[in-house]
Protein backbone atom coordinates (compact mmCIF):
# COMPACT_ATOMS: atom_id res chain seq x y z
CA UNK A 1 0.00 0.00 0.00
CA UNK A 2 1.05 3.57 -0.54
CA UNK A 3 1.13 6.28 2.06
CA UNK A 4 2.16 9.90 2.36
CA UNK A 5 5.49 10.57 4.06
CA UNK A 6 6.06 14.01 5.53
CA UNK A 7 9.42 14.69 7.08
CA UNK A 8 12.09 17.32 7.52
CA UNK A 9 14.97 16.19 5.35
CA UNK A 10 18.24 18.08 5.71
CA UNK A 11 16.37 21.04 7.17
CA UNK A 12 13.63 21.23 4.56
CA UNK A 13 10.05 20.03 4.84
CA UNK A 14 9.25 17.42 2.24
CA UNK A 15 6.26 15.31 1.25
CA UNK A 16 6.34 12.18 -0.89
CA UNK A 17 4.02 9.33 -1.75
CA UNK A 18 5.86 6.07 -0.91
CA UNK A 19 5.07 2.40 -0.69
CA UNK A 20 5.08 0.90 2.78
CA UNK A 21 7.87 -1.55 2.04
CA UNK A 22 10.45 1.04 0.97
CA UNK A 23 13.44 1.41 3.26
CA UNK A 24 14.70 4.82 4.35
CA UNK A 25 17.98 4.12 2.53
CA UNK A 26 16.23 3.41 -0.77
CA UNK A 27 13.91 6.39 -0.29
CA UNK A 28 16.91 8.69 0.18
CA UNK A 29 18.91 7.33 -2.73
CA UNK A 30 16.26 6.50 -5.29
CA UNK A 31 13.25 8.68 -4.54
CA UNK A 32 15.00 11.84 -3.34
CA UNK A 33 18.25 11.27 -5.26
CA UNK A 34 20.60 11.84 -2.33
CA UNK A 35 23.28 9.25 -3.01
CA UNK A 36 25.70 10.33 -0.27
CA UNK A 37 24.21 7.68 2.02
CA UNK A 38 25.74 4.36 0.99
CA UNK A 39 24.37 0.86 0.69
CA UNK A 40 26.87 -1.50 2.28
CA UNK A 41 26.01 -4.88 3.75
CA UNK A 42 22.21 -4.46 3.57
CA UNK A 43 22.00 -6.19 6.93
CA UNK A 44 22.93 -3.74 9.67
CA UNK A 45 26.50 -4.97 10.03
CA UNK A 46 28.57 -2.20 8.44
CA UNK A 47 27.04 1.22 9.24
CA UNK A 48 27.66 2.69 5.76
CA UNK A 49 23.98 3.72 5.61
CA UNK A 50 24.02 5.64 8.93
CA UNK A 51 21.88 8.80 8.99
CA UNK A 52 20.62 10.94 11.85
CA UNK A 53 16.95 10.73 12.82
CA UNK A 54 16.14 13.46 15.35
CA UNK A 55 19.93 13.73 15.89
CA UNK A 56 20.30 10.01 16.73
CA UNK A 57 22.33 7.74 14.44
CA UNK A 58 20.13 5.12 12.74
CA UNK A 59 20.73 2.43 10.14
CA UNK A 60 18.70 3.55 7.13
CA UNK A 61 18.99 0.06 5.58
CA UNK A 62 16.90 -1.41 8.41
CA UNK A 63 14.40 1.41 8.93
CA UNK A 64 11.23 1.73 6.88
CA UNK A 65 10.91 5.17 5.30
CA UNK A 66 7.33 5.30 6.61
CA UNK A 67 8.70 5.36 10.17
CA UNK A 68 10.46 8.65 9.44
CA UNK A 69 7.07 10.34 9.16
CA UNK A 70 7.06 13.51 11.26
CA UNK A 71 10.75 13.12 12.09
CA UNK A 72 13.86 15.10 11.25
CA UNK A 73 16.30 13.19 9.03
CA UNK A 74 19.82 14.44 8.30
CA UNK A 75 22.15 12.86 5.73
CA UNK A 76 25.76 13.63 4.92
CA UNK A 77 24.52 16.16 2.33
CA UNK A 78 23.20 18.34 5.17
CA UNK A 79 26.58 19.07 6.70
CA UNK A 80 28.12 21.56 4.27
CA UNK A 81 26.91 25.10 4.89
CA UNK A 82 27.74 28.02 2.59
CA UNK A 83 30.27 25.86 0.80
CA UNK A 84 32.20 25.13 4.00
CA UNK A 85 32.80 21.64 5.30
CA UNK A 86 31.53 20.86 8.78
CA UNK A 87 33.92 20.15 11.65
CA UNK A 88 33.62 16.38 11.20
CA UNK A 89 34.11 16.58 7.44
CA UNK A 90 37.19 18.77 7.88
CA UNK A 91 38.48 16.37 10.51
CA UNK A 92 38.17 13.36 8.18
CA UNK A 93 39.74 15.35 5.32
CA UNK A 94 42.67 16.85 7.18
CA UNK A 95 43.51 13.88 9.44
CA UNK A 96 43.18 11.37 6.57
CA UNK A 97 40.23 9.58 8.15
CA UNK A 98 38.99 8.57 4.71
CA UNK A 99 40.73 6.32 2.20
CA UNK A 100 38.47 4.55 -0.31
CA UNK A 101 35.65 6.66 1.11
CA UNK A 102 32.80 4.18 0.96
CA UNK A 103 32.28 3.95 4.71
CA UNK A 104 32.95 7.66 5.22
CA UNK A 105 29.41 9.10 5.05
CA UNK A 106 28.34 6.58 7.71
CA UNK A 107 31.31 7.37 9.95
CA UNK A 108 30.80 11.11 9.43
CA UNK A 109 27.13 10.92 10.43
CA UNK A 110 27.81 8.67 13.45
CA UNK A 111 30.52 11.16 14.49
CA UNK A 112 28.24 14.15 13.93
CA UNK A 113 25.62 12.44 16.09
CA UNK A 114 28.22 11.93 18.81
CA UNK A 115 29.38 15.56 18.79
CA UNK A 116 25.81 16.86 18.86
CA UNK A 117 25.14 15.10 22.16
CA UNK A 118 28.69 15.05 23.55
CA UNK A 119 30.88 17.88 22.19
CA UNK A 120 33.98 16.76 24.13
CA UNK A 121 34.14 12.98 23.82
CA UNK A 122 37.00 10.94 25.25
CA UNK A 123 38.81 8.45 23.03
CA UNK A 124 36.82 5.61 24.62
CA UNK A 125 33.57 7.44 23.96
CA UNK A 126 34.57 7.94 20.30
CA UNK A 127 35.43 4.24 19.94
CA UNK A 128 32.14 3.29 21.55
CA UNK A 129 30.08 5.67 19.40
CA UNK A 130 31.63 4.32 16.18
CA UNK A 131 31.10 0.69 17.19
CA UNK A 132 28.35 0.13 14.62
CA UNK A 133 30.57 1.18 11.69
CA UNK A 134 33.16 -0.81 9.75
CA UNK A 135 36.13 0.58 7.82
CA UNK A 136 38.39 -1.84 5.91
CA UNK A 137 41.02 0.74 4.89
CA UNK A 138 42.17 2.98 7.69
CA UNK A 139 42.59 0.67 10.66
CA UNK A 140 40.48 3.22 12.60
CA UNK A 141 43.40 5.14 14.14
CA UNK A 142 43.07 7.99 11.64
CA UNK A 143 39.30 8.01 12.05
CA UNK A 144 39.60 8.48 15.80
CA UNK A 145 42.14 11.27 15.26
CA UNK A 146 39.72 12.85 12.79
CA UNK A 147 36.90 12.90 15.34
CA UNK A 148 39.21 14.28 18.04
CA UNK A 149 40.26 17.06 15.67
CA UNK A 150 36.61 17.67 14.75
CA UNK A 151 35.78 18.09 18.43
CA UNK A 152 38.48 20.78 18.67
CA UNK A 153 37.09 22.57 15.61
CA UNK A 154 33.60 22.28 17.07
CA UNK A 155 34.82 23.78 20.36
CA UNK A 156 36.27 26.65 18.32
CA UNK A 157 32.86 27.34 16.81
CA UNK A 158 32.49 25.13 13.73
CA UNK A 159 29.18 23.26 13.36
CA UNK A 160 29.61 19.50 13.94
Amino acid at each position, binding site marked *: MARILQLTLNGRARTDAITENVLLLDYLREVVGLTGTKTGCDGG*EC*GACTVLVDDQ*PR*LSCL*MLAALADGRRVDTVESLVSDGRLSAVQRGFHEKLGSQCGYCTPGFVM*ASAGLLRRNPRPSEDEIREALGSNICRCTGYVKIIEAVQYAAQLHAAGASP
Partner: protein
Amino acid sequence: MEALPPFDLIRPRTLAQLIDARAAHPASRLLGGGTDLMVNIRRGIVAPPVLIDVNGVDELRTIEADAHALEIGAAATLSEVAAHSGVMQNYPVVAQAAGHIAGPTHRNMGTVGGNIALDTRCIFYNQSEWWRQANHHCLKTTGEICHVAPKSRGVCFATFSGDLAPALLTLDAEIDIAGVSGKRTVPLAELYIGYARQNEPVTVTRGDGKFFLSLQPSEIVTAVRARNSPGLRSAYDKIRIRRSIEYPVTGVAVALRRDGDILADLRVAFTGTNPRPVRLAGTDKLCGGPLDAPVFAGLDALVRDQIMAMKTTFTPGHYRRRVAGVLARRLVQRLFEGG
Protein backbone atom coordinates in the same frame (compact mmCIF):
# COMPACT_ATOMS: atom_id res chain seq x y z
CA MET B 1 18.59 -2.22 -4.36
CA GLU B 2 16.81 -5.40 -3.49
CA ALA B 3 13.17 -4.51 -2.87
CA LEU B 4 11.45 -5.90 0.17
CA PRO B 5 8.45 -8.12 -0.46
CA PRO B 6 5.18 -6.21 -0.18
CA PHE B 7 3.46 -5.94 3.20
CA ASP B 8 0.97 -3.66 4.88
CA LEU B 9 2.12 -1.43 7.71
CA ILE B 10 -0.15 -0.65 10.65
CA ARG B 11 0.85 2.09 13.08
CA PRO B 12 -1.32 1.91 16.22
CA ARG B 13 -1.23 4.73 18.79
CA THR B 14 -2.64 2.81 21.77
CA LEU B 15 -2.17 -0.64 23.25
CA ALA B 16 -5.84 -1.42 22.55
CA GLN B 17 -5.36 -0.63 18.85
CA LEU B 18 -2.21 -2.72 18.82
CA ILE B 19 -3.96 -5.73 20.35
CA ASP B 20 -6.86 -5.37 17.91
CA ALA B 21 -4.46 -5.19 14.96
CA ARG B 22 -2.62 -8.27 16.19
CA ALA B 23 -5.88 -10.19 16.59
CA ALA B 24 -7.07 -9.15 13.13
CA HIS B 25 -3.79 -10.24 11.51
CA PRO B 26 -2.53 -13.45 13.12
CA ALA B 27 0.33 -13.75 10.61
CA SER B 28 1.58 -10.23 11.35
CA ARG B 29 4.91 -9.45 12.99
CA LEU B 30 5.58 -6.67 15.45
CA LEU B 31 8.10 -4.10 14.24
CA GLY B 32 10.24 -2.46 16.92
CA GLY B 33 13.70 -1.42 15.79
CA GLY B 34 13.70 -3.87 12.91
CA THR B 35 17.36 -4.66 13.50
CA ASP B 36 16.67 -8.41 13.36
CA LEU B 37 13.28 -8.60 11.64
CA MET B 38 14.13 -6.45 8.61
CA VAL B 39 17.26 -8.53 8.00
CA ASN B 40 15.22 -11.72 8.12
CA ILE B 41 12.56 -10.31 5.78
CA ARG B 42 15.29 -9.25 3.39
CA ARG B 43 16.79 -12.73 3.43
CA GLY B 44 13.42 -14.33 2.75
CA ILE B 45 13.47 -16.11 6.11
CA VAL B 46 10.11 -14.63 7.05
CA ALA B 47 7.53 -12.88 4.86
CA PRO B 48 4.85 -11.40 7.10
CA PRO B 49 1.90 -9.92 5.16
CA VAL B 50 1.45 -7.24 7.84
CA LEU B 51 3.89 -5.37 10.05
CA ILE B 52 2.61 -3.63 13.18
CA ASP B 53 4.84 -0.75 14.29
CA VAL B 54 4.95 -0.63 18.11
CA ASN B 55 6.99 2.58 18.36
CA GLY B 56 3.98 4.90 18.35
CA VAL B 57 2.37 3.31 21.42
CA ASP B 58 3.46 5.64 24.22
CA GLU B 59 2.25 3.35 27.02
CA LEU B 60 4.82 0.77 25.90
CA ARG B 61 7.73 3.21 26.23
CA THR B 62 7.87 3.79 30.00
CA ILE B 63 10.98 3.11 32.04
CA GLU B 64 10.57 3.27 35.80
CA ALA B 65 13.39 2.18 38.04
CA ASP B 66 13.96 3.05 41.67
CA ALA B 67 15.28 1.28 44.76
CA HIS B 68 12.10 -0.80 45.01
CA ALA B 69 10.98 -1.86 41.56
CA LEU B 70 11.82 -1.92 37.89
CA GLU B 71 9.31 -1.67 35.06
CA ILE B 72 10.25 -1.29 31.40
CA GLY B 73 7.82 -1.09 28.50
CA ALA B 74 8.43 -3.35 25.51
CA ALA B 75 8.96 -0.45 23.09
CA ALA B 76 11.61 1.32 25.19
CA THR B 77 14.86 1.37 23.23
CA LEU B 78 18.01 -0.38 24.38
CA SER B 79 19.89 2.94 24.43
CA GLU B 80 17.28 4.38 26.78
CA VAL B 81 17.57 1.43 29.16
CA ALA B 82 21.39 1.39 29.10
CA ALA B 83 21.58 5.13 29.90
CA HIS B 84 18.74 5.32 32.46
CA SER B 85 20.20 6.43 35.78
CA GLY B 86 17.64 4.52 37.87
CA VAL B 87 18.38 1.29 35.99
CA MET B 88 22.15 1.80 36.12
CA GLN B 89 22.07 2.47 39.84
CA ASN B 90 19.58 -0.12 41.08
CA TYR B 91 19.64 -2.83 38.40
CA PRO B 92 23.17 -2.64 36.96
CA VAL B 93 22.94 -6.09 35.38
CA VAL B 94 20.03 -4.88 33.21
CA ALA B 95 21.72 -1.62 32.16
CA GLN B 96 24.95 -3.48 31.37
CA ALA B 97 23.16 -6.15 29.36
CA ALA B 98 21.30 -3.49 27.35
CA GLY B 99 24.59 -1.66 26.73
CA HIS B 100 26.22 -4.88 25.47
CA ILE B 101 23.68 -5.46 22.70
CA ALA B 102 25.01 -5.04 19.14
CA GLY B 103 26.44 -1.56 18.46
CA PRO B 104 25.35 1.93 19.54
CA THR B 105 23.36 2.67 16.38
CA HIS B 106 21.50 -0.64 16.71
CA ARG B 107 20.69 0.20 20.33
CA ASN B 108 19.09 3.49 19.23
CA MET B 109 16.68 1.38 17.19
CA GLY B 110 16.28 -1.97 18.97
CA THR B 111 13.62 -2.40 21.64
CA VAL B 112 13.36 -4.28 24.93
CA GLY B 113 10.46 -6.40 23.65
CA GLY B 114 12.40 -7.27 20.52
CA ASN B 115 15.39 -8.41 22.53
CA ILE B 116 13.32 -10.44 25.00
CA ALA B 117 11.49 -12.20 22.15
CA LEU B 118 14.52 -12.23 19.83
CA ASP B 119 14.38 -14.98 17.23
CA THR B 120 16.83 -17.82 17.77
CA ARG B 121 19.85 -17.96 15.48
CA CYS B 122 21.86 -20.56 13.61
CA ILE B 123 24.45 -20.63 10.82
CA PHE B 124 21.99 -22.72 8.80
CA TYR B 125 19.11 -20.28 9.39
CA ASN B 126 20.47 -16.72 9.21
CA GLN B 127 21.42 -17.02 5.55
CA SER B 128 20.03 -15.85 2.24
CA GLU B 129 17.25 -17.71 0.47
CA TRP B 130 19.53 -19.25 -2.16
CA TRP B 131 22.06 -20.33 0.48
CA ARG B 132 19.39 -22.11 2.48
CA GLN B 133 17.79 -23.56 -0.63
CA ALA B 134 21.13 -25.03 -1.74
CA ASN B 135 21.20 -26.81 1.61
CA HIS B 136 17.58 -28.04 1.31
CA HIS B 137 16.58 -25.56 4.02
CA CYS B 138 16.50 -26.60 7.68
CA LEU B 139 14.07 -27.61 10.36
CA LYS B 140 13.56 -24.04 11.57
CA THR B 141 12.09 -23.01 8.20
CA THR B 142 10.72 -25.57 5.76
CA GLY B 143 13.40 -28.26 5.77
CA GLU B 144 13.26 -31.73 7.22
CA ILE B 145 16.40 -32.03 9.29
CA CYS B 146 18.41 -29.94 11.71
CA HIS B 147 21.82 -29.60 10.05
CA VAL B 148 23.41 -28.97 13.44
CA ALA B 149 22.08 -32.28 14.77
CA PRO B 150 20.94 -34.37 11.80
CA LYS B 151 19.80 -37.21 14.05
CA SER B 152 17.71 -34.96 16.29
CA ARG B 153 14.40 -36.33 14.96
CA GLY B 154 12.51 -33.10 14.56
CA VAL B 155 14.24 -31.06 17.26
CA CYS B 156 15.75 -27.68 16.24
CA PHE B 157 18.84 -26.42 18.06
CA ALA B 158 18.92 -22.76 16.96
CA THR B 159 20.43 -20.66 19.74
CA PHE B 160 18.82 -17.93 21.79
CA SER B 161 21.13 -14.92 21.97
CA GLY B 162 19.20 -12.03 23.56
CA ASP B 163 21.20 -10.28 26.27
CA LEU B 164 18.41 -8.88 28.44
CA ALA B 165 16.88 -12.27 29.26
CA PRO B 166 19.77 -13.67 31.37
CA ALA B 167 20.10 -10.35 33.19
CA LEU B 168 16.39 -10.27 33.98
CA LEU B 169 16.32 -13.96 34.93
CA THR B 170 18.84 -13.32 37.72
CA LEU B 171 16.36 -10.78 39.12
CA ASP B 172 13.41 -13.23 38.97
CA ALA B 173 11.71 -10.82 36.56
CA GLU B 174 8.13 -11.11 35.40
CA ILE B 175 6.60 -10.09 32.09
CA ASP B 176 3.22 -8.61 31.26
CA ILE B 177 1.52 -10.31 28.33
CA ALA B 178 -1.52 -8.89 26.55
CA GLY B 179 -3.84 -10.48 24.04
CA VAL B 180 -7.46 -10.56 22.97
CA SER B 181 -8.37 -12.64 26.01
CA GLY B 182 -6.89 -10.08 28.42
CA LYS B 183 -3.67 -9.49 30.27
CA ARG B 184 -1.56 -11.80 32.40
CA THR B 185 1.71 -11.58 34.26
CA VAL B 186 4.03 -14.58 34.33
CA PRO B 187 7.61 -15.25 35.42
CA LEU B 188 9.96 -14.43 32.55
CA ALA B 189 11.45 -17.92 32.88
CA GLU B 190 8.11 -19.38 31.74
CA LEU B 191 8.33 -17.48 28.44
CA TYR B 192 11.26 -19.59 27.29
CA ILE B 193 10.49 -23.18 26.39
CA GLY B 194 13.44 -24.01 24.12
CA TYR B 195 14.53 -27.09 26.06
CA ALA B 196 15.40 -29.02 22.90
CA ARG B 197 16.13 -32.54 24.07
CA GLN B 198 17.19 -34.99 21.38
CA ASN B 199 14.53 -37.60 20.65
CA GLU B 200 12.07 -35.84 22.94
CA PRO B 201 9.07 -34.66 20.92
CA VAL B 202 8.36 -30.92 20.88
CA THR B 203 5.25 -30.01 22.89
CA VAL B 204 3.50 -26.76 23.82
CA THR B 205 5.34 -26.64 27.14
CA ARG B 206 8.70 -28.09 26.06
CA GLY B 207 9.81 -26.65 22.75
CA ASP B 208 13.06 -26.26 20.84
CA GLY B 209 14.96 -23.69 18.80
CA LYS B 210 11.95 -23.23 16.53
CA PHE B 211 9.18 -23.16 19.14
CA PHE B 212 11.02 -21.30 21.84
CA LEU B 213 8.41 -18.90 23.26
CA SER B 214 5.27 -19.86 25.18
CA LEU B 215 3.18 -16.99 23.74
CA GLN B 216 -0.24 -17.72 22.25
CA PRO B 217 -0.63 -16.63 18.60
CA SER B 218 -2.17 -13.19 19.25
CA GLU B 219 -0.28 -12.42 22.45
CA ILE B 220 2.42 -9.79 22.85
CA VAL B 221 4.88 -8.97 25.61
CA THR B 222 4.05 -5.45 26.84
CA ALA B 223 6.41 -4.91 29.78
CA VAL B 224 9.00 -6.50 32.02
CA ARG B 225 9.13 -5.92 35.76
CA ALA B 226 11.34 -6.90 38.68
CA ARG B 227 11.74 -6.11 42.37
CA ASN B 228 14.95 -5.00 43.99
CA SER B 229 16.59 -7.32 46.52
CA PRO B 230 18.55 -5.42 49.18
CA GLY B 231 22.25 -6.10 49.03
CA LEU B 232 22.15 -7.93 45.70
CA ARG B 233 25.20 -7.22 43.55
CA SER B 234 24.82 -7.88 39.85
CA ALA B 235 26.71 -7.58 36.58
CA TYR B 236 26.66 -8.72 32.96
CA ASP B 237 29.49 -9.57 30.60
CA LYS B 238 29.83 -11.22 27.25
CA ILE B 239 32.47 -12.39 24.83
CA ARG B 240 32.19 -11.66 21.14
CA ILE B 241 34.51 -12.44 18.25
CA ARG B 242 34.24 -8.78 17.28
CA ARG B 243 33.66 -6.62 20.32
CA SER B 244 31.49 -3.93 18.78
CA ILE B 245 28.60 -5.57 16.90
CA GLU B 246 28.44 -9.37 16.76
CA TYR B 247 26.17 -11.83 18.52
CA PRO B 248 27.58 -13.45 21.66
CA VAL B 249 29.95 -16.37 21.85
CA THR B 250 28.36 -16.39 25.26
CA GLY B 251 26.82 -13.86 27.63
CA VAL B 252 26.64 -14.27 31.39
CA ALA B 253 24.61 -12.48 34.06
CA VAL B 254 25.47 -12.95 37.74
CA ALA B 255 23.68 -11.67 40.83
CA LEU B 256 24.92 -12.51 44.31
CA ARG B 257 24.70 -11.43 47.92
CA ARG B 258 27.61 -11.49 50.34
CA ASP B 259 27.11 -11.55 54.12
CA GLY B 260 30.52 -11.02 55.73
CA ASP B 261 32.66 -13.75 54.22
CA ILE B 262 29.69 -15.91 53.31
CA LEU B 263 28.23 -16.29 49.84
CA ALA B 264 24.59 -15.91 50.82
CA ASP B 265 22.86 -15.95 47.43
CA LEU B 266 24.05 -16.80 43.92
CA ARG B 267 22.19 -16.58 40.62
CA VAL B 268 23.82 -17.20 37.25
CA ALA B 269 22.21 -17.08 33.80
CA PHE B 270 23.56 -17.53 30.27
CA THR B 271 22.71 -16.58 26.70
CA GLY B 272 24.16 -17.64 23.38
CA THR B 273 24.45 -21.29 24.33
CA ASN B 274 21.07 -23.06 24.32
CA PRO B 275 17.77 -22.54 22.46
CA ARG B 276 16.67 -20.67 25.60
CA PRO B 277 18.41 -18.40 28.08
CA VAL B 278 19.47 -20.66 30.94
CA ARG B 279 19.27 -19.68 34.59
CA LEU B 280 21.51 -22.28 36.23
CA ALA B 281 19.59 -24.58 38.55
CA GLY B 282 21.31 -25.67 41.75
CA THR B 283 23.37 -22.58 42.56
CA ASP B 284 21.61 -22.38 45.95
CA LYS B 285 23.57 -25.49 46.97
CA LEU B 286 26.80 -23.54 46.44
CA CYS B 287 25.78 -20.88 48.97
CA GLY B 288 26.20 -20.75 52.74
CA GLY B 289 29.97 -20.80 52.94
CA PRO B 290 33.01 -18.85 51.76
CA LEU B 291 33.73 -18.42 48.07
CA ASP B 292 36.33 -21.18 47.81
CA ALA B 293 37.56 -23.75 45.31
CA PRO B 294 34.68 -26.21 45.88
CA VAL B 295 32.18 -23.45 45.00
CA PHE B 296 33.95 -22.83 41.70
CA ALA B 297 34.18 -26.56 41.04
CA GLY B 298 30.47 -26.83 41.74
CA LEU B 299 29.77 -23.92 39.40
CA ASP B 300 31.81 -25.59 36.66
CA ALA B 301 29.82 -28.79 37.11
CA LEU B 302 26.50 -26.95 36.80
CA VAL B 303 27.71 -25.26 33.60
CA ARG B 304 28.88 -28.61 32.23
CA ASP B 305 25.50 -30.20 32.91
CA GLN B 306 23.16 -27.43 31.80
CA ILE B 307 24.95 -25.46 29.09
CA MET B 308 24.46 -27.18 25.76
CA ALA B 309 26.26 -25.12 23.10
CA MET B 310 25.93 -26.75 19.68
CA LYS B 311 27.59 -25.91 16.36
CA THR B 312 25.09 -23.14 15.59
CA THR B 313 27.77 -20.45 15.22
CA PHE B 314 31.20 -20.27 13.62
CA THR B 315 32.76 -20.87 17.02
CA PRO B 316 32.59 -24.51 18.16
CA GLY B 317 30.10 -25.45 20.85
CA HIS B 318 32.68 -26.83 23.29
CA TYR B 319 34.60 -23.55 23.12
CA ARG B 320 31.46 -21.53 23.87
CA ARG B 321 30.71 -23.74 26.85
CA ARG B 322 34.22 -23.23 28.21
CA VAL B 323 33.93 -19.48 27.70
CA ALA B 324 30.60 -19.56 29.55
CA GLY B 325 32.24 -21.22 32.56
CA VAL B 326 35.21 -18.86 32.59
CA LEU B 327 33.06 -15.73 32.26
CA ALA B 328 30.81 -16.91 35.09
CA ARG B 329 33.80 -17.56 37.39
CA ARG B 330 35.25 -14.13 36.67
CA LEU B 331 31.99 -12.32 37.32
CA VAL B 332 31.30 -14.24 40.55
CA GLN B 333 34.80 -13.47 41.82
CA ARG B 334 34.59 -9.81 40.88
CA LEU B 335 31.17 -9.23 42.42
CA PHE B 336 32.04 -11.11 45.61
CA GLU B 337 35.22 -9.10 46.09
CA GLY B 338 33.77 -5.70 45.59
CA GLY B 339 31.74 -4.59 42.69
